[in-house]
């Protein structure tokens, strides 16, 4: 049953925040793009951690999220630095990472949850990329 509750929370959080970005910041779809990419990438890392270690996500989830935020900082400073480092892009992708972590905190190895999170991860990253670059 855990996977259903967590899955529902995850989908509702993505829907509510994604809609907010579209409604209020629709003129800047790159902000939504960075947010979804950060969310998707971190979700993937958390799902992978659950799959490999089987441990409950607690402080380790926070550590993974900080690593994801750090990786986001590096990519925003390098390969995605088109004009200059944009702190707003960094904040948005980091917020996505935090929302992913918030949804997954307290979860344990659950096959269906891992499949859901692992499946959503690349979809969100790709959709994020499209919003950011298309």
């Amino acid at each position, binding site marked *: 049953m855990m996977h259903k509750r967590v899955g529902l*929370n995850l989908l509702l*959080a993505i829907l509510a925040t994604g809609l*907010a970005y579209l*409604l*209020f910041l629709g*003129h800047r779809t790159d902000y939504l793009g960075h947010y979804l990419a950060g969310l998707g990438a971190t979700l993937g890392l958390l799902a992978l951690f659950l799959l490999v270690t089987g441990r409950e996500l607690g402080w380790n989830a926070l550590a993974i999220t900080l690593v994801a935020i750090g990786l986001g900082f590096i990519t925003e400073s390098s390969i995605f630095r088109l004009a*200059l480092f944009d702190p707003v892009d960094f904040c948005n992708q980091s917020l996505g990472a*935090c929302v992913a972590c*918030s949804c997954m*905190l307290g979860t344990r190895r659950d096959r269906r949850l891992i499949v859901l999170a692992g499946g959503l991860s690349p979809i969100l990253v790709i959709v994020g990329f499209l919003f950011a670059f298309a």
Partner: protein
Amino acid sequence: MALIVLALCAGNLWFTLARSTIPFELNGKVESVDVLTEKHPGLDDVYLVRIGDREIQVDEAVARSLRVGDHIRKDSWTWEILNLSDVGTSIRLTPSKDFWGMGRTMPVVLIAASLVLFTGRKRRTDRAEIIG
């Protein structure tokens, strides 16, 4: 985690407000006004203004109002840039669409993150009680 989300939301609001120059004190000659293109030219262009030896990123409206060579002056947390080279003229400042959009979006993100954190905490507490 909630504190990190709060800090990032505040960061978004600050950076988008900062580009209006409203929070800053400005005093000097406009040395250059540059436009750098990003992913969507015309939509997410980066406007850089050099005033004296200080370079800042500004909103498009601010960049288009400044002329190279003008001497300008502005106090911090005021909504007007005085053009000392053309006495009597000034530039009226307003926060950008990005700022107002963030003002509506960030509370949604904060509330969503807080709600899922709360339900997750409740889930762990319920599980602990069952195990206990």
